[in-house]
C-alpha cells in the first residue's frame, strides 16, 4: 500500500471515528454526573434525520448540524423529565428514548429518503493541506472532525480544571453528600443530560451530512450503543474516548476494505466485527480490573431528596 493510499485509509478511519467521539464524549459528561442515558442511539438517529432534513431544505450544512443538536436536546429533555424529574429507572427510560427515536426518525426522514446533497466540505489551507502524506490528514478534514477534537479538549478542561466540573464529578460520585452540601444535584444532572443529547444529535447529523451525505432509515446501525460501550472502554476519561473511537473506526474501515477485497469471508460476518469487537473490548476491560472501579459511583442511581 502506498503512503498516499495509507493517508486516504487513515482519513476514512478518522471520519468513521468522529461520530463515535462526539456521541461518546457527550455521554461521558452525562455519566460523570451519574446519569446513564441509554437513549444515545435514538437521539443520534433523530439527529441524523432532522439534520439532513434541515440541511437539505436550507442548503446549509451548519443549519443541519444545529438542527441535529436541537433534536438531541429536545429528546434528551424527555429523558431528563423521566429519569431525573420523576426518578424513574434510567435503563428503562433510556430504552424508551431509543425506541421513540428510531420511530420518530423514520417519520421525519420519510420525505427525504433517496435525496442526496454535497457532503460537508473539507478544510483546505493552502500549502499546509498539500503537505505530502500528512497534509490532508491533519489539515484537510471536515469541520466536524476539528469540532470533535475541540469538544474532547473542552470537556477534559471542564471536568478537571473548573469548579463546575468538580461539582459535576462530585454529584456523580455521591449524590447524597452533594445534596447535603447544597449542590444542585438534579439541575446539574439535567444540564449534563442535555449536553449529552446535544452531542448525540450532532454525531447523528455528522452521519447524514458528512459521513454519507444522505438519509436512510436505521443508518446509525448501533453506533449509539457502541458510543456507550466506548465510555466504559475509556474508563470515563475524555482522551481515551478518542483512542477507543479510532480503534473502532479502524476496525470498521478494515472490515469494509476486506469486504471490497473479497477475501472469501462472508460479508455479513465481516459486518459483525465492530459489534464483536465491542464485546471483546468490554471483556478485556473487565478482566484484571476490579469491578467497575473507574465508574462514577452513583452512575445510574435515581436520586430522590430525602428528609
Amino acid at each position, binding site marked *: 500500500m502506498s503512503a498516499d493510499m495509507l493517508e486516504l485509509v487513515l482519513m476514512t478511519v478518522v471520519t468513521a471515528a468522529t461520530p463515535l467521539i462526539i456521541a461518546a464524549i457527550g455521554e461521558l459528561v452525562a455519566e460523570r454526573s451519574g446519569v446513564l442515558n441509554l437513549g444515545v442511539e435514538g437521539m443520534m438517529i433523530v439527529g441524523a434525520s432532522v439534520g439532513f432534513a434541515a440541511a437539505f431544505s436550507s442548503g446549509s450544512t451548519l443549519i443541519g448540524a444545529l438542527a441535529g443538536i436541537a433534536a438531541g436536546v429536545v429528546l434528551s429533555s424527555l429523558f431528563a423529565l423521566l429519569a431525573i424529574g420523576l426518578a424513574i429507572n434510567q435503563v428503562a427510560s433510556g430504552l424508551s428514548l431509543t425506541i421513540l427515536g428510531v420511530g420518530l426518525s423514520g*417519520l421525519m426522514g420519510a420525505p427525504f429518503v433517496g435525496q442526496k446533497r454535497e457532503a460537508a466540505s473539507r478544510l483546505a489551507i493552502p500549502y499546509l493541506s498539500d503537505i505530502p502524506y500528512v497534509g490532508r490528514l491533519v489539515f484537510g478534514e471536515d469541520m466536524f472532525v476539528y469540532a470533535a477534537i475541540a469538544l474532547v479538549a473542552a470537556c477534559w478542561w471542564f471536568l478537571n480544571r473548573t469548579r463546575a466540573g468538580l461539582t459535576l464529578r462530585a454529584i456523580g460520585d455521591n449524590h447524597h453528600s452533594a445534596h447535603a452540601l447544597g449542590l444542585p444535584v438534579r439541575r446539574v444532572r439535567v444540564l449534563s443530560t442535555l449536553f449529552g443529547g446535544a452531542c448525540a444529535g450532532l454525531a447523528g447529523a455528522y452521519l447524514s451530512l458528512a459521513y454519507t451525505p444522505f438519509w436512510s432509515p436505521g443508518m446509525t446501525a448501533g453506533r449509539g450503543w457502541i458510543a456507550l460501550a466506548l465510555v466504559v472502554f475509556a474508563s470515563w476519561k475524555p482522551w481515551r474516548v478518542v483512542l477507543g473511537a479510532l480503534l473502532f473506526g479502524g476496525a470498521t474501515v478494515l472490515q469494509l476494505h476486506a469486504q471490497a477485497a473479497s477475501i472469501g469471508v462472508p460479508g455479513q460476518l465481516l459486518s459483525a466485527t465492530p459489534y464483536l469487537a465491542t*464485546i471483546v473490548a468490554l471483556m478485556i476491560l473487565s478482566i484484571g480490573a476490579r469491578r467497575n472501579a473507574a465508574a462514577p459511583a452513583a452512575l445510574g442511581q435515581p436520586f430522590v431528596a430525602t428528609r
Partner: protein
Amino acid sequence: MRIDLEPRRVRSRVLEIAAPVGALLVSILLGGVVIALLGKSPVEAFQVYFVDPLLESWSLQELAVKACPLVLIAVGLSFCFRANLWNIGAEGQFIIGGLAGACLGIATHDGAMQETFGGWWILPAMLLLGVIGGAAYGLIPAILRAWLGASEILTSLMLVYVAELGLDYLVRGPLRDPHGFNFPQSVTFDDVARLPFLMEGERLHAGVLIALAVVAIAAFVFARSLFGFEIRLVGEAPRAARFAGFSEKRLTLVAFAISGGLAGLAGICEVAGQIGQLQPAISGGYGFTAIIVAFLGRLRPLGILIAGLVLALTYIGGETAQVAMKLPQDMTRAYQGILLMCVLGADAVTRYRIHLRIGG
C-alpha cells in the same frame, strides 16, 4: 419548573392498576397529536388502530398470533428485569432460537429421517432446540457479566446485530433453498415440522396455547416458589439476597437462560407457526417491543398477557393504517416509544406524590 417527589408510604392497589391504564390513554392522546402533525385524522387513526382490529374474527385471531411471541418474550424478560438484570438482547435470542429450531426442520425436509423414525418427534425437538438455542445465546451476556463484570446491557444488545447478520448470511448461504430461484429463504417446512392450527383453515396456531401455559407457569413461580422469591429479593435488595444465601452469579445465569429460552421458544414458534420457513428477517422487532410489553404489564405474568394483546393491536393497526391511511410503519414504533415513556411516567405516580412548582 421544579418537580418535588415525596415517596408514598402506602402504595395504593387501585393506583397500581389505574396507572398503566392511564398511561395507555395518555399515550393514545399523544400519538393522536403526532398523527395530526403528520396531517392525518387522529380520529380515523384511532378507529384503524384500536377499534377495527377488534371487530373481525380474522383480526382477532391475528391479534392472538401476534401477541404470542410478545407475551413469551416479555414473560422471560420479567425474570431478568425483576432481578435488576437488563437483558435487552431478546431480539437476538429470538433469532437464534428460531434458527436453531429451523435447522432441524430443514434437515428433515428430505424425508429420509421421517421414513426411518416417523415424524411425530420433529416438532417437539424443534421447539426444544429453539429453547436451547435462545438460552445458550442469552447465557453469553450472563456469563460475561457474572464472571467478568461486563455490562450485560451492551453485550446483549451487540449480540442482536451479530444474530441478525448471522441469520442473513445463513439464509442467503448454506440454508438457502437450492430450488428456490435464488430467493433468500430456506425450504418450506413439512407439515410435521409446523405448529398445527387450532382450527381448520384459520390463523390461530398452537403457539398461542404454549404462550398461555407459560404465563400460568410463570405466575405460579413468582407467587409460590422460592425461586420467584429469590428473583424478587435480588431486584429489591441485593445484599439481603446474599444474606438469604442466594448466589447472584447463579441467579444471573438462570434468569438469562430462562429469558433467552423463552425468547428462543417465541422465535421457533414464529418460524414454525406463522412463517413456515427461514427468511432474512423473521422478527419484526418483537424482541424490543416485548420490553414495552413487560413494563406495561408491570412485570407480572397476567399483566404481560394483557399488555401483549395491547401491543399486538398496535402492530395490526399499524399494518392496516399503512394501507388505509398511508401512515408509515414507523408510526407504530414511535407510538410504542411514547407508550413506554407514559408507562414509566405512570410508575412514578404510583411511587411518589408529585408536586409541581412553577418558577421555584
